[in-house]
């Protein structure tokens, strides 16, 4: 059973809340970074919220995800606690990883999030192994493996899809094609011109979805998850989306135009589109939309404030977590 169905009134409220929460969470991070209270680097997924939510909503409680360096949205959509996430980013002892991970390594294993990963395609073989484990234990659980268009050109992509294919593992590979691998445009980086068509090479289904339409992502992922749960093997989903912000905090967007970014933002924004849809379909009223926005904003505010009050990561236990 999907955790929530964004095409029902109750599901729409919850999905919209998740998507607004992701956006407000990352906007808050930007602000904290600009104020100099948040350090290191981070990779924002603003503009890609529909992929995280469309996939996570289609999973059941107890299903697993693996995530990427651009993973805040995945964690939130899969049930992470905002305060613990902020605490991790603010290097606090109460953070998910007690300050040992930071932005690129948030994991929430109790919720089934096996972790973000700082290596491009780094989580793909791990997701494959987690799926193998589900098959061996007969749990009926499924693994959703997020990765980017850049990861599709890593060797680990090939090894993972091949192994998942021959063993028919319950894993849904979700490529978030946000058009750029750092600065390199996807069409310049992809021989054959298509990521999704690579599924053919492994004898598995491939489906291209509108990654800025949470309903399209949800429906296709739900089918993929159901199929994987039935033991019919892996699937490759390519979700076409767009990242509004630079690759990381050092990116000045020199490889694309402001017009291009604005065009996506104005005409294809996943929140604008879903809100319009929700009203059209009569799933929610405009008052309810506003309530969602306010609830997300307030939840983020409360979480930041609480995280600030938490104690810093504790140097007294610097080496403790390296070995069991």
């Amino acid at each position, binding site marked *: 059973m999907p955790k929530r169905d964004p095409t029902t009134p109750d599901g729409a409220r919850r999905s919209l809340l998740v998507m607004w929460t992701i956006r407000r969470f990352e906007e808050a991070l930007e602000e904290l970074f600009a104020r100099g209270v948040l350090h290191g680097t981070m990779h924002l997924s603003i503009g890609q919220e529909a992929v995280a939510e469309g996939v996570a909503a289609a999973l059941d409680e107890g299903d*697993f995800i*693996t995530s990427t360096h651009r993973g805040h949205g995945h964690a939130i959509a899969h049930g992470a606690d905002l305060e613990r996430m902020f605490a991790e980013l603010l290097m606090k002892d109460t*953070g*998910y*990883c*007690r*300050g*040992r*991970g930071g932005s690129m*390594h948030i*994991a929430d*294993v*109790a919720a089934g999030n*096996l*972790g973000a*990963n*700082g*290596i491009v395609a*780094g989580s*793909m*073989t*791990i*997701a*494959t*192994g*987690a*799926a*193998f*484990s*589900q098959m*061996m*234990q007969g749990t009926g659980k499924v*693994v959703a493996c997020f990765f980017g268009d850049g990861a599709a050109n890593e*060797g*680990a992509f090939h*090894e*993972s899809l*091949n*192994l998942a294919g*021959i063993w028919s593992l319950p894993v849904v590979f979700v490529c978030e094609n946000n058009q750029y691998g750092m600065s390199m445009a996807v069409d310049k980086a992809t021989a054959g011109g298509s990521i999704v068509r690579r599924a053919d090479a492994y004898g598995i289904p491939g489906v291209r979805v509108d990654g800025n339409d949470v309903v399209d992502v949800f429906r296709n992922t739900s089918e993929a998850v159901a199929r994987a749960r039935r033991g019919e093997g892996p699937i490759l989903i390519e979700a076409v989306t767009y990242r509004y912000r630079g690759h990381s905090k050092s990116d000045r967007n020199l490889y694309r135009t402001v017009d291009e970014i604005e065009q996506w933002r104005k005409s294809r924004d996943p929140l604008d589109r879903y809100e319009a849809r929700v009203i059209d379909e009569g799933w929610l009223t405009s008052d309810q939309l506003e309530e969602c926005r306010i609830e997300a904003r307030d939840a983020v505010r409360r979480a930041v404030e609480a995280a600030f009050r938490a104690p810093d990561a504790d140097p007294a236990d610097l080496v*403790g*977590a*390296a*070995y*069991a």
Partner: protein
Amino acid sequence: MAEMSYRDAIAYGIAQEMRRDPRLVMLGEDIAAAGGVFKTTVGLLEQFGPDRVRDTPISEQAILGAAMGAAMTGIPVIAEIMFSDFIAVCFDILANQMAKTRYMTGGQVTVPVVIRTHNGGGARFGAQHSQSVENWCMMIPGLKVVAPSTPRDVVGLMAAAVRDPDPVVFLEHKSLLATKGEVPEGEIVDELGVAKVVREGTDCTIVALALMVPRALQAAERLAAEGISAEVIDLRSLVPLDTQTILSSVAKTGRLFTVEENPRLCGWGAEIASIVGHEAFWDLDGPVVRITTPHIPLPAAETLEDMAIPSVDRIYKEIVEVMD
């Protein structure tokens, strides 16, 4: 008590653990019907079936990544990398994923994987199938590293490695496979990080690992004929490192020699020399001497390979020269 080859002890030790833990799975290339390229897994497919003794494609990243994902979610794995040189092909999974994940997640997960691999030279295989890579592994925080020198220790250390919650690299020496030794009846379980004094002596300490242990013992015999009483320590485990046994021996003998098959730079003996220099400086009656393979890729020709790897003759000569 039964005499057994080092080669047979590997499958014997694995079988002991697979009987004990029905979750335990093996992944690797040609390990099932073929019984392993070095015949170290003969009979395991027949005993435990194709689900638990799994041939994989030639995909080293997928082997280790799948092992890790499975281990994080309830299925401990013994993964085989056919030749230890091939660790370089999947170094990301070893060095960035398995080794770091426990720490990066603040201790949320453990990765109970044993990475078995055939290490070392002497078989005339050339540089890409012969290197001693224990120093590659030892330098990675988060890994444990084990290298047995006898059939009995293969069994005892295999059990310790499998039962350890952290990833353990288990180095099986190719040139020891045909050697034989006594293996006591019944379950054998050793502790990681415990060295063995395999010959007692009073004039100097020789610390050795894997194939270098029998060579150091033979050299010690010849030294005895010259009136030099050498104590020989079989290190068995590099991480954790049994510094106490080394320091106690040096306190007694006042002289330290390391015999290392790894290329000289950053070999494990350098670390031990540093520890002894720091903690037992006043116990030393002379400089620490490292007897190693030169800093070169290993050559294939017998005349060259035998010159490169420390031989009994070279160990003897280098020690006699300094002890005179």
